């Protein structure tokens, strides 16, 4: 088992840093480039959800991202203590957006991962637990 934890301020300037870091973390087990790009996309969607929806881009607030590698299984946990999601079923509906955005974030995460769990309550923050099975190069 290998674990990485990153706490960062809720600003979009950090989005690329975090997705690239988790991508590099996954690369330590020699997974395919396709998997790394999927992971970067998943992390980007989850992190921008925390920054834009959770904290409404309040730079003083902090997001916590954890990556856990267990053989070829990667767990990504993205946690904020922001506004939370009132209605999870509505939030994961394709094209739903409370902020005039594309509303495709959860659709993309679900499509590129092997499991997505959303734990959230209004005003109690949001925790996304995402599982991705990685393909090791040459196997």
């Amino acid at each position, binding site marked *: 088992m290998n674990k990485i934890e990153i706490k960062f301020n809720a600003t*979009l*300037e950090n*989005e*690329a840093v975090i997705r690239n870091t988790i991508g590099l973390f996954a690369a330590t087990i020699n997974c395919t480039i*396709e998997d790394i*790009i999927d992971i*970067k*996309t998943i992390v*980007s*969607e989850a992190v*921008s959800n925390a920054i*834009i929806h959770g904290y409404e881009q309040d730079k003083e607030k902090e997001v916590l991202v954890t990556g856990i590698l267990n053989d070829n299984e990667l767990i990504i946990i993205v946690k904020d203590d922001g506004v939370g999601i009132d209605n999870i079923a509505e939030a994961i509906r*394709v094209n739903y957006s409370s902020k005039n*955005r*594309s*509303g*495709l*974030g959860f*659709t*993309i995460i679900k*499509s*590129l991962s092997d499991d997505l769990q959303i734990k959230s309550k209004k005003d109690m923050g949001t925790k996304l637990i995402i599982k991705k099975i990685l393909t090791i190069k040459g196997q």
Partner: protein
Amino acid sequence: MDSRISIKDNKNVVIFKVEGDFDNLLCIKYKSSITEILARKKAELTIFDLSQVNFIDSSGIGLLLGRYKQVNEYKGKLIICGVNKQIKKTLAISGIALIIDTYEDIYENIKESITSYE
């Protein structure tokens, strides 16, 4: 590589060449100027050249969808070209590939089939 969008326009064609990461930061930086250029030019053909894009997420897709609707309002056409395997995958998941014509080739190679716009 710094992410950026450069603009090339001919008489009836506007080409936006996107380079680097097509993400939130890039969209925030360029969205209003792209919208303004399209509103002013009302070109028959708008092309987003993604051949130098390493990464796209839902914000990039949102920008493309928004411009597609804008171009449609004045009866123009919008296409996406230079789409690699990974970008194609994200476009397919989002459903955007069903409504916007996408090409793997760069613009120079598909130019012949759409020259009627120039």
